[in-house]
């Protein structure tokens, strides 16, 4: 019985060369590939083809409109020169410095806060079902929306500062959002607010997956709660750290609306990230080649993080 089933099922085109297969049944066998083809073709063209196109544009001297004569790596040379132009800072210098500050703090604080909240929530808390969605909802809202509230809250004349003044703490001063040296830290605060609940959920799922027996055994051996978490639980959560890091890293590099909604770019573009740099140079400053080159650099950064991860994940899966 099973052999019959096998032969009927494995009708891949290689097997199908046998005589007698009608056109109709051959079509049936090709059907899965025909169904998949449009999506795959779209991916090839609109993802990979467009990436190549962007790379191509970065080697031209396109300004307002694309020009297709290769003129060499001028755009990259300019970006390279701007990389070291710190006084006064070039827009590119600001963007990548901000990326470093934002990326590091955003990932580190989200991981720390996410883990902390997950551990707290894992202490058999009453009302966990209420708290978890509260921590997580920012991920469901566009930052264009919540940025409206954040902007207001951080505004020295209206928000937190004003409120604390009303409550009597008149010396309180908090104007980071208007300060070109500190504006990027307000982006960190808002970014952490948005994503840390999600990281918490990832860690919580990881914690729930840990075998209770291991914990019990450690407790019987006299481990304190702190030791238990440091020596046993956190090492066991390594895969979650990795996934969370990957997610946060690519969210950090893709962050765009965060900066736009919160700061409109900040005083003199001081809150720009490379994503904002790309958009501004491409669509506002008519420097299409430079914009494309910056997009290519963003893509390469993400690729360096993602590809090894995907490779190991998929290889593991297919054994």
């Amino acid at each position, binding site marked *: 019985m099973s052999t019959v*089933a096998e032969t009927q099922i494995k009708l891949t085109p290689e097997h199908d060369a046998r005589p007698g297969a009608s056109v109709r049944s051959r079509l049936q066998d090709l*059907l899965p590939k025909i169904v998949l083809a449009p999506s795959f073709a779209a*991916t090839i063209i609109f993802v990979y083809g467009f990436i190549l*196109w962007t790379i191509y544009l970065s080697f031209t001297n396109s300004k307002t409109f*694309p020009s297709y004569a290769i003129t060499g790596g001028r755009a990259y040379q300019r970006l390279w020169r701007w990389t070291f132009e710190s006084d006064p800072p070039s827009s590119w210098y600001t963007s990548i410095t901000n990326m470093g500050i934002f990326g590091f703090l955003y990932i580190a604080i989200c991981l720390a806060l996410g883990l902390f909240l997950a551990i707290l929530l894992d202490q058999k808390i009453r009302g966990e079902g209420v708290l978890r969605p509260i921590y997580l909802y920012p991920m469901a809202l566009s930052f264009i929306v919540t940025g409206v509230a954040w902007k207001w809250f951080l505004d020295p004349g209206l928000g937190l500062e004003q409120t604390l003044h009303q409550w009597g703490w008149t010396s309180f001063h908090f104007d980071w959002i208007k300060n070109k040296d500190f504006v990027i830290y307000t982006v960190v605060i808002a970014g952490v607010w948005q994503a840390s609940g999600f990281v918490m*959920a990832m860690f919580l799922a990881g914690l729930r997956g840990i075998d209770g027996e291991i914990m019990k055994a450690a407790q019987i051996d006299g481990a304190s709660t702190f030791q238990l978490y440091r020596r046993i639980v956190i090492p066991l959560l390594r895969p979650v750290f990795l996934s969370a890091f990957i997610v946060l890293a690519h969210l950090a590099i893709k962050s765009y609306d965060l900066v736009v909604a919160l700061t409109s770019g900040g005083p003199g573009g001081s809150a720009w990230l490379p994503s904002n740099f790309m958009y501004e140079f491409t669509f506002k400053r008519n420097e299409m080649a430079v914009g494309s080159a910056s997009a290519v650099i*963003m893509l390469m950064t993400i690729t360096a993080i993602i590809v090894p991860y995907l490779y190991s994940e998929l290889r593991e899966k297919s054994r």
Partner: protein
Amino acid sequence: MSAVSSPAPQASSGARARTINRIVIYGLLALFAIFYLMPLFVMLVTSFKTMDEIQNGNMLSLPHAPTFAPWIKAWSEVCSGLTCVGMKGYFWNSIKMVVPAVLISTLLGALNGYVLTKWRFRGHILVFAMMLFACFIPFQSVLLPMATILGSLGRFGVTLQNATGFNFGLGNSTVNLVFVHVVYGLGFTTLFFRNYYEAFPTELVKAAQVDGASFFQIFRRIMLPNSLPIIVVTVIYQFTNIWNDFLFASAYAGSGDVMPMTVALNNVVNTSTGVVEYNVNMAAAMIAALPTLIVYVVAGRYFVRGLMAGAVKG
């Protein structure tokens, strides 16, 4: 803990330590709950206040005389740039964009997942990996070519319009955005369905094949009826992402009456003529937030599952 509980004399001090411990934990959890809820709370209360109360009152206080006026103004009168027609038109723009984009990308994702798990061919891993990688690319790296292509299609649409009297949707911003969101959402939807169908018993599919069921019959009669959870996850994930998108929307429908909600909201908030009406801005933001917020409240569990599935790959 009970396994290591100490003898009676120390038990009471242990119990007190535990109580303090609990208080600290609950205190911290409550503090963070306030931190996360604060922006939404500020938006909500401010949207029901009068401008008078905002200027003279406290940001965190509840409205003394709640008024719906800011909401009404946000819905039908607020200015985005120089046009003062409220958010309602933009709201419908977003709906018209989101619904087809979600349906098409979910259906295609289901079919792709079905093929990639139950009708495997040589290289299926590579195909999947290539679609998966597309989930991670910064969209800046495809933004410009897509703008160029959409521009040319728009011009072709005008030609068609002149020749046949119908432009077949070419050059229509909503159609463009639907297309863009379908293309760049395929990676996610395929990922969701592929991982879900991976665990679906292949024997059932084989048995149906033996009984002579065709490719689509199996999909419709066996796969789809068993896919409800993952359909919900995918629809919610796509809905949230597409509704909240700002980059594509501002690049391809960034001005005029074709803007989706997010772009219009950003314009409203940054319109700086006259006195800034914070209550109206907050009401407009709430209107933009409501659809995803409702989905989250009603089906948050599925939203989280989608995020997780998108995070833990493979």
